[in-house]
């Protein structure tokens, strides 16, 4: 029943926000688009990327194509070999930061001739530089240990690295200014002929500009890339400024929340991707089954709110709202038990009321 409404009335072959099938009708991997988009798991999610990113401070990695992912990406052959490339990704919760990081990881894989990157995922606690570098070292060792003896000799190398680390940590653990540069050089020597996969450090939360720069200095010859995800614009900008004066190997990309017009473009793109081929829409309903009022209601300022800048929402939140409104409308139509053919299209549309309900339900859930 819901399939019929989607196809016959709304001219959609799939849920446009969490599609299950690709254009050819083959099932997509659900985890590749469940929360964020992950083309590493399923490259067919690339067309779902909507460019909400500010590339002004990223000359080497920029722009999104539905087929290639990032249009341009730093070529390791043109970069200084002794320094990892650092991506500073700025954005708040649900702003599309994880999807962007996955896009970068996909590109890293591509430039490494398809070798899967080995990702060291780190969440930093606090702003102590030495402590944060130590956390990175510990998690790097743990990640390598989890790889077992693949490639052969890695296990032995990791043991040596661990011993070197233990000695250095014993010596430096109370030194708040320690940079552990010696031990990281030793890591590089142990790994340089062993690990051919790109080693990527991904800082998913915490730290500050000083910590990130210190960490980059520590791992710049061990890791190929460092990805830092942060909601703090001042830290990101400062780290970018400070690194760009020393090396060109830095990019700062900002995930920008969507204004009303951008939100409509996003919805348009999602719907277009899932339109039944050859579908002819009523000229007044380009966003079928959504009415433009449904978008408008999401951008109404709250009572007593005085805003100087335009209201904007993170893309993840917007996707959830649109999905919830569509799903609720579909459920209510199915519950009414009227055959799709007997329904009047105009009575099935998603307008301001339905969207308001969806937003209210989301607010209650939070």
């Amino acid at each position, binding site marked *: 029943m819901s399939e019929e409404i989607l196809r016959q009335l709304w001219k959609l072959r799939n849920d446009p926000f969490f599609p299950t099938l690709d254009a050819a009708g083959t099932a997509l991997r659900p985890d590749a688009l469940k929360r964020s988009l992950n083309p590493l798991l399923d490259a067919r999610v690339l067309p779902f990327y909507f460019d909400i990113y500010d590339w002004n401070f990223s000359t080497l990695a920029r722009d999104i194509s539905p087929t290639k992912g990032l249009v341009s990406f730093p070529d390791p052959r043109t970069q200084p070999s002794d320094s990892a490339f650092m991506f500073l990704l700025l954005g708040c919760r649900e702003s599309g930061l994880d999807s962007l990081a996955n896009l970068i990881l996909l590109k890293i894989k591509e430039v490494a001739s398809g070798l899967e990157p080995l990702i060291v995922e780190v969440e930093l606690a606090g*702003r102590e530089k030495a402590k944060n570098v130590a956390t990175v070292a510990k998690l790097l060792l743990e990640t390598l240990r989890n790889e077992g003896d693949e490639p052969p000799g890695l296990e032995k190398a990791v043991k040596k690295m661990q011993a070197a680390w233990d000695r250095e940590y014993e010596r430096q653990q109370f030194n708040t200014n320690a940079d552990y540069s010696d031990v990281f050089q030793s890591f590089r020597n142990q790994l340089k002929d062993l690990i051919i996969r790109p080693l990527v450090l991904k800082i998913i939360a915490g730290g500050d*500009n*000083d910590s990130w720069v210190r960490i980059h200095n520590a791992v710049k010859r061990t890791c190929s890339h460092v990805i830092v995800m942060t909601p703090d*614009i*001042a*830290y990101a*900008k400062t780290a970018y*400024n*400070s690194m760009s004066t020393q090396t060109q190997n830095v990019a700062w990309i900002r995930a920008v929340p969507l204004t009303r017009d951008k939100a409509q473009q996003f919805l348009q793109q999602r719907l277009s991707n899932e339109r039944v081929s050859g579908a002819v829409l009523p000229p007044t309903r380009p966003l079928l089954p959504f009415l433009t009022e449904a978008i408008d209601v999401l951008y109404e300022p709250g009572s007593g709110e005085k805003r100087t800048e335009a209201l904007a929402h993170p893309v993840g939140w917007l996707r959830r709202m649109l999905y919830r409104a569509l799903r609720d409308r579909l459920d209510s139509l199915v519950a009414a038990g009227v055959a799709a053919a007997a329904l009047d299209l105009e009575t099935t549309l998603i307008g301001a009321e339905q969207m308001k309900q969806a937003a209210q339900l989301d607010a209650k859930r939070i």
Partner: protein
Amino acid sequence: MSSRPAGAWTPGLLALMCAWIPCAQSAETATKKSLPPLEQGVIVVTGLPSVIESRVPYLGDAPPQCIDFSVSVIGKSAPELHITTVAVANARLRELPSNSTEACNITGKSAPRSIFLHDVNATERRVRLFIPSESFPRRAQGEAAKLLLVKLDSPPSEQALLLLRQNPEWQNLIVWLAGVVAPLIAAALSYVIKTAYDRRKAHNESAEAFRRQHATDLADFFGNLYKSTVELETPDEYAKTLERELEAKGILGTLDAGQLDRLRAAVRANDRRLVGNILIHKFPENSEAIRRAHPGDRLR
């Protein structure tokens, strides 16, 4: 006027009982001397206090004092009794008719300095002694004076008086304040000033030590993160980030309460220029870096 009860009358009565004996003399001395013959007549003065006090009011001048007393002569009546005062400037005397209610100041205006009473016998004659306020001495111990009663056929009789000026409470209060409270206040004030000075001095020293010890960190902060913060677009982001960083770098701890309030108010009001000026004042070593972070603000 205030009068002395009980013992205060004793010298006067003795003197009157024996007209030859001065009032200041003790009773013992008096009894040893020979009494005058009753035929000569004995002058008796009643109702005259030996101590006369003038109470200075809180405001304005003290009023004159009028002391009414009675004079009689026991024994042989005196055809003429001359009464005057000694050592009381501008004192006036007037014989009062019985039941007179004459106002004191009227007496002062019209009465003579000495009076003659005629045919004084055992019948009491009322006399008023008027003492203007300026006659009362300023000295704390008072001024000795006399009432002199002269009868033609006998030596003069003296009635000793002590004139005292009673200062008002507030004068005592002023003396007390000047003597006790003022030094205490001065001491407390100097303690407070010294403590504040010491605290400020210690604070300045610790701030200077902080600047010295963290010179590299501060230069790094003002040259980098501070600049990025000043460049933040929204006032909310600016205020939130700057307060967090000033706290984290220990900079807020170097400010005294007043400076801290001023800085916080400027940060929250998004007055970036004022914030820059406050920080330049506190961190002169970093003034160039702070100025660079405010290219359009023309900081001091």
